[in-house]
């Protein structure tokens, strides 16, 4: 994010305006309003709010509004002082803890965690008793109470950075610990640190107001917003604004600090918006059917089990435009056939598969002329019967089974859902069914395994369980998206075996997506090569090398190192005019 874009964002503008305003009040307000704030004028005491006295007057006739403005300087200075104490102390503690040897470090962080368990207010009161109630002691009390939080934050940030590869690289070339601290750790933690320092300032300001409100902060005859609040609340029935006025000032100042903090942040919205936005297959509840379709005929013999024609998938870009990631793809899957989709980054292969399954989220703008699965028209809203059919006949296997299986539910719970909900089996029958499915995929001791959680399975077993999950229905199509990419090659072979057996036993068709051309050609009957959102060629798997005619396919096959590549010569490279646009700048150099 550039400084300009940050300044011009909503929080940036609010922050800038707020900061300027408060700076003005703090610097100039003292002189301008001092007289009105401090001169007693007893005949004018306890007046209600008016144009002349926006917040009324206090019991000595002093204008409360003026007092609020004059108090700004004290409040803000004390806040900044306390924040500085917290920040400096926190940085020192946190950075030292990172450098410490292992056992001392655990003591240091253990102490931090213990301190963090206690709310700041109690710590502040603790220190106040020791040092007595005054403005400076309150400042130090609040400042020191804020150190554990900052220290933990700094420690977490610095730890995470020091584990990164670029820090290890620096150590390998001989950069010493101090060099690493200064050159690598500090620049990379600076931004989150500033953001949190500003947020801490906001909290500190509120804490100060609270403390003075209790009479334990700024002492008479000095006054800050907290003390004005304390004065005001005794008269709240007579003149509510006497209390609300200072309250508003406190809230506004706190908000300005928060805006500054948000404006400084590198990541927008602290990740909140980003998280919500990144969901590609985001869940939206399947819409209820409008008008049930009479009866389900299913696909007629000779018809493909699934097909999609002229598929286009587009996404909105950050600046309001649209980018098309799939640009006119047609796929037809015959019952029982194994089709592979191969492509590099940006080819659109996963999107195509997800679109075929009808699982793209509301983020995606989808356009097709035809989209059918087993006789169901997928371009129309689905009936309950349609949904059941899909749930039973379409199975999905994703790349990372640790995230594609729900970590909070047992394997058994997840594998009995389709039989219970769609096949209307009883709990007992569903469990038996699930056990059989696990056995079919080669998981020993299946009945006991039903009660375990995904994290208790190894990677290969989890993928088997995913395939087993597809088998608990009556699958006619299984879509596997990079199912073995995260697995070792020997485990991959076993899982592919399971997949093949499943296909033979159920007669289901398989759509297999991968970047690994050799794997796809070794497993599938037919291979679709995708590049930049279109299918460039369809090839028979066993004759893939001989039959390829499209320049991209040929180039892709040529540059693939395999067990027969010529070791004496450089590997062929894809010429830039043929390369996928996402990778064009890479190759040909």
């Amino acid at each position, binding site marked *: 994010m550039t400084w300009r874009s940050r300044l011009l964002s909503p929080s940036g503008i609010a922050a800038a305006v707020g900061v300027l305003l408060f700076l003005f009040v703090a610097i100039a307000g003292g002189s301008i309003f001092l007289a009105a704030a401090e001169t007693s004028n007893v005949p004018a005491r306890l007046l209600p709010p008016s144009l002349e006295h926006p917040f009324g007057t206090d019991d000595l006739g002093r204008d409360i509004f003026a007092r609020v403005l004059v108090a700004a300087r004290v409040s803000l200075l004390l806040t900044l002082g306390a924040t500085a104490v917290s920040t400096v102390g926190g940085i020192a503690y946190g950075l030292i803890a990172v450098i410490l040897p292992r056992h001392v470090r655990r003591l240091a962080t253990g102490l931090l965690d213990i301190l963090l368990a206690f709310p700041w207010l109690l710590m502040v009161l603790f220190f106040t*008793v020791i040092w007595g109630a005054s403005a400076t002691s309150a400042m130090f009390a609040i400042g020191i109470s804020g150190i554990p939080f900052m220290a933990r934050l700094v420690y977490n940030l610095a730890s995470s950075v020091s584990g990164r590869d670029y820090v290890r690289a620096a150590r390998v070339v001989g950069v010493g610990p101090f060099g690493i601290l200064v050159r690598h750790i500090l620049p990379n933690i600076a931004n989150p640190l500033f953001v949190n320092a500003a947020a801490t300032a906001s909290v500190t300001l509120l804490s100060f107001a*609270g403390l003075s409100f209790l009479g334990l902060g700024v002492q008479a005859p000095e006054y800050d917003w907290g003390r004005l609040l304390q004065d005001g609340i005794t008269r709240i029935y007579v003149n509510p604004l006497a209390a609300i006025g200072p309250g508003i000032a406190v809230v506004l100042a706190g908000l300005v600090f928060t805006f500054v903090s948000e404006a400084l942040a590198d990541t927008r919205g602290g*990740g909140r918006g980003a998280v919500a936005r990144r969901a*590609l297959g985001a869940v939206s509840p399947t819409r209820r059917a409008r008008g049930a379709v009479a009866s389900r005929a299913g696909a007629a013999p000779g018809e493909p089990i699934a097909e999609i024609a002229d598929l286009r998938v587009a996404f909105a870009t950050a600046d309001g435009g649209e980018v098309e990631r799939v640009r006119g793809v047609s796929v037809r899957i015959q019952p029982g056939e194994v089709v592979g989709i191969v492509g590099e980054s940006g080819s659109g292969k996963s999107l195509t598969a997800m679109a075929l399954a009808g699982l793209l989220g509301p983020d995606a703008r989808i356009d097709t002329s035809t989209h059918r699965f087993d006789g169901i028209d997928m371009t129309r809203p689905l009936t309950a019967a349609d949904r059941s059919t899909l749930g039973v006949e379409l199975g999905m296997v994703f790349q990372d089974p640790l995230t594609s*299986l729900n970590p909070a539910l047992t394997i058994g719970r997840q594998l009995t859902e389709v039989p219970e909900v769609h096949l209307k089996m009883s709990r007992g029958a569903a469990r038996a069914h699930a056990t059989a499915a696990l056995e079919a995929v080669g998981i020993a001791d299946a009945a006991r395994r039903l009660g375990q959680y995904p994290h208790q399975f190894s990677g290969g077993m989890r993928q088997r369980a995913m395939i087993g999950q597809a088998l608990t229905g009556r699958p006619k199509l299984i879509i596997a998206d990079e199912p073995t990419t995260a697995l070792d090659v020997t485990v991959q072979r076993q899982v592919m075996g399971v997949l093949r057996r499943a296909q033979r036993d159920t007669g289901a068709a398989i759509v297999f997506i991968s970047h690994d051309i050799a794997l796809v050609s070794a497993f599938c009957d037919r291979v679709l090569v995708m590049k930049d959102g279109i299918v460039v060629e369809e090839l028979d798997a066993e004759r893939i090398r001989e039959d390829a005619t499209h320049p991209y396919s040929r180039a892709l096959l040529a540059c693939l190192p395999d067990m027969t590549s010529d070791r004496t010569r450089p590997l062929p490279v894809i010429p830039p005019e043929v390369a996928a646009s996402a990778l064009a700048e890479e190759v040909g150099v």
Partner: protein
Amino acid sequence: MTATPPPAVADMAGAPTAALAVRAEGRARGPQLSPRAAFLLRRIGRLLVSLVVVVVASFFLVHLVPGDPVRAALGIQASPELVAATRTELGLDKPIPVQFLDYVTNLLRGDFGDSIRTGRPVAETIGQRFPATVTLGVLSFLVALLAAVPIGIGAAVALQRPGRKLADALISGTLGMLIAVPGFLLAVGLIALFAVQLRWLPAAGWGSPQDAVLPILALALGPLAYLARIVQVEMSGVLGATYMTTARAKRLPGRLVYLRHALPNIITASLTVSGLLLSGMIAGTVLIETIFAIPGMGGVMVPAVGAKDYPIVQGLVIVYALIILGVNLIVDLILVTVDPRSSITEG
């Protein structure tokens, strides 16, 4: 193959002390101890250490004061005889290790000493005031928790639909405002509106249910908004996870997808934050009790701090600490039971 971009350079979360579940595979202490039992033992161990730290700190409270603590408490006018007598009474003339021992043995017997100002036993005062504080704290916590979770979930779900920019702005705006205003300011505002202007509810007192409405609102609204925001973020994250796509692929009915698949995954984060919030709310009771004149522990704490009435402050610090540590332990216990992955955590 697509290379995934790196995680954002360091997140901004401070680390709560409550157990953060780390998905490690089998690093149990020893063959006999189940991972959960080991975890519980570690937690209890930390609780005991924390308690020791608090007791020690509380003891040294008196001795850290610059100058003469007794004279400071009794005031400048107090006669030297009174000061000396009070010193002896408080046992301040004995060597420090002996004093500490006396202190701890007294604590274990339930004797927290006597207030310097009133002379009444601290334990008695605390005992009288304990119920009001706990009632206020627990009720406020329940209100916050029971309201925040549905709100957070609802907000996350609402953001999934098109036309969500407006909803997003409204929701985060409201929540943001509530989070920005601290409890005591909310209290002032609520009093001004409901007690002064509308005269619907009383501004002070503690006897009938009406008296409780404003204090609970003031104490609960901020944490409620904070928790709702956290639940919303967690829920959004969950909704975008691959296992939700798997659930959708199974074409399960919408309600089942949310209740069975999404909900369990936000419990850990929500519980962890709730634990933190409860600790914060206990502290908040100090301010709220002062404002609404509620006969709880906070009402005694503040004057005691101002007047340097050490025995009361010491006693209260320990009691507050006990409550907070107890709450944290309960949250950890629930977490361990509820979250299947939390069998191993950082020590």
